[in-house]
């Protein structure tokens, strides 16, 4: 089972793959640039002066112990933190050059460009079809043909089409855990975002479902920029091109994934990826 491979093995395997990947995908442009971002919940500062560039059509993994701020940073990228009272964000985050925190920015537009998949799969209590086309309906599209096409395309994109094509009218809640998470991915890609944020998408799934999601992430990389938060270091090693390690709200190390897992520069990183704490 791949999920139990040792870090060294995976590191080596990934390294070879990454080399080929870098030539095909990974244009080298940055999709998101984060500059000097600080965030606090009330008086409690959760992010300290984070700066990083996230590459286009790459998978970037955020790792670190619980409470290190990786999810908080992820939720800054599509302004989901706006939903929480008493949050202050300073610094600059630009998505393909557009400052998403500028007062002139349309938040809805940002969220349409930066989709999100959550830790807990959260399909709506609606049919599979309605789940997928939700974002389009919200955007005011009601042309049945357009919706049908988008539904099939998204479900194919999320590798779910063959499993559900005969029961699109059934409730999305009748699916298995892994299928539900792929349904959520289909829902996210239905609005054709540029970037997909994934907040521990596999933490509630069994190894086989996890494997399917990871394969999916691989194929999605060709079209989308993906940022994934994970507690599973092997997963970070398997799916990501670059990895960022966070500790106590600070970005400790950010590098190519193979380098990170084989030759960490920082002592903290080394301790964490070798399982000495966290």
């Amino acid at each position, binding site marked *: 089972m791949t999920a139990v491979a040792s870090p060294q093995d995976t590191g080596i395997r990934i390294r070879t793959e990454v080399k080929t990947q870098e030539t095909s995908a990974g244009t080298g442009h940055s999709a998101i640039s984060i500059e000097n971002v600080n965030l606090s919940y009330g008086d409690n500062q959760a992010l300290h002066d984070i700066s990083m560039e996230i590459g286009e059509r790459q998978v970037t993994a955020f790792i670190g112990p619980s409470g290190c701020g990786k999810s908080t940073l992820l939720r800054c990228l*599509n302004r*989901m933190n706006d*939903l929480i009272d008493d949050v202050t964000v300073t610094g600059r985050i630009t998505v393909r050059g557009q400052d998403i925190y500028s007062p002139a920015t349309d938040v*809805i*537009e940002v969220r349409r460009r930066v989709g999100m998949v*959550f830790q807990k799969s959260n399909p709506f*209590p609606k049919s599979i079809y309605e789940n997928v086309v*939700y974002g389009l309906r919200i955007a005011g599209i009601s042309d049945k043909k357009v919706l049908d096409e988008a539904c099939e395309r998204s479900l194919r994109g999320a590798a779910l089409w063959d499993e559900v094509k005969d029961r699109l009218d059934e409730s999305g809640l009748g699916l298995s855990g892994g299928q539900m998470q792929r349904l959520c991915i289909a*829902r996210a890609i239905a609005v054709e975002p540029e970037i997909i944020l994934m907040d521990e998408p596999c933490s509630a799934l069994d190894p086989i479902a996890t494997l399917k999601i990871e394969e999916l992430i691989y194929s999605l990389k060709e079209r989308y920029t993906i940022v994934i938060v994970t507690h599973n270091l092997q997963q970070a090693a398997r799916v990501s091109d670059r990895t960022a390690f966070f500790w106590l709200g600070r970005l400790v190390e950010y590098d190519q994934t193979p380098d990170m897992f084989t030759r960490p520069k920082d002592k903290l990183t080394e301790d964490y990826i070798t399982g000495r704490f966290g």
Partner: protein
Amino acid sequence: MKLPLSIRRGDPMVWFTGSALGTCLLLIAGLIVIVLTNGLGFFWPSALVELTLKDGSKWLGEEIRRQAIPNPGSDDHLREHRVQLKLGNRDLLGYDFKWIDEKEIASRREPADAFYVERREYGPLLGTPVALKDGERVLAEGDAVWAALQPLVAKAEHDRAAIEQIEKHEIGEINYRIEQQRLALKRIEYREKQDGVKREAERAAVAAAVAAQEERFRGKQQELDRLLATAATTYVTFRAADGAEKELSTLDIYRIYPANQLGFGGRLAVYAGRIWEFMSADPRESNTEGGIFPAIFGTVMMVILMSLMAVPFGVLAALYLREYAKQGPLVRIVRIAVNNLAGVPSIVFGVFGLGFFVYFVGGGIDRMFFPEALPTPTYGTGGILWASLTLALLTVPVVIVASEEALAAVPRSMREASIATGATKFQTILHVVLPAAAPGILTGLILAMARGAGEVAPLMITGVVKLAPELPLDGFFPFFHPDRKFMHLGFHIYDVGFQSPNVEAAMPMVYTTTIFLLLIIVALNLTAIVVRNRLRRKYQTSAF
């Protein structure tokens, strides 16, 4: 000291809590049993007994109660018994119930020729038909009367329906139109007074319309007279137990049956017929006879109107409190105030409804839209609209509290999923939060209906009357008349039970009406529960 095992296990607590629940259930079951036994027995046609007393007098009636005679201090205290007879024949005797001491009774028999007659006025008549006449011509005598009478009773029912059709619906319509014209005339007079311009043409049109209606009225009146002339020619003479005779027009006979000749099936038929009449007919004789249909209709209509107003209003208020308002001390205070509002005595709401809705809002509407009818109020008096609004106000806190809880129970992850796909907060609420909260909101509606349907006090001063001649919904434009007064089962119980001139006759009606009030509340609640369960199945949130 070591306690016994059963106590250490905590068994006493189980018995304690169990008996608390048991007591509650017993009380409710007792209530229902008392209401059912007292109410359902009322319609059953029991045997008619003829008691001959030692002084030679004869009494025919239904034995409805038997009790020990209290005589404190003497030997026979609670040893002797007496029975209560329902005698009917109020017009002959001046009373229709009588207590008879059992020791006074010389003999007791159930005469086969005793009939129970329900008629238009004076309550039931109990006696033996001796002759049937058409004008002066004798159609039948003695035992042959019953056979000859049956088709005439059926014809009487048919005739009554025809008469009611003319009196209530057709002449009622004419009256309605004349009333409209009268108001139109007052409007013209009002305008003339205001601007001094004479409106002869309009006056003439109104006069012509009134004349046309009056012409129609005369036609209907003649039709009615003809109908009455053919319908009310046959008379039956009954002889009561004491030998007194009473002549009764067959048109006035609603139901007649030989009480002591009926088998079980026959009694069941009478029973079912009476229940149906009770449900579907208008009340007669100051509500002690006939049915309660207008009260059932008024109750259901009022509850529906109340729900239509309370639910949208309450849900909107809950949405603001839960979704938009910044949670803080102010919102907490508002929430406490809403909770307390649910505990305000209903009569206080009634007084508010009278002062605000009826006098202020209703009076304002009258001054603005119906000044010509003043000082006769149109909306400035109690009516179903104001009563429903008052009850909506009374139940809206319940809806707010339940809706708030339902909204709070919608998982955060579902809102986030919607927001993350690019939905606005409003779209999220509309498409995700509200559907998921709908079952909980319906629970609020159920609670509100349960409270609203059972209220009487605020209605008494905002529009309920003991007898409403017209339903708030009918065939005349605009079909729904929110200004009309209405009847209500709760008030009907109060009126029949405590305001009736004939307490003994009215008492069973209290129980039967109670049964119907309970049934209607159960039916309304069941409907809401079925809808809620259906929604709950549809919007069941994921298991983990």
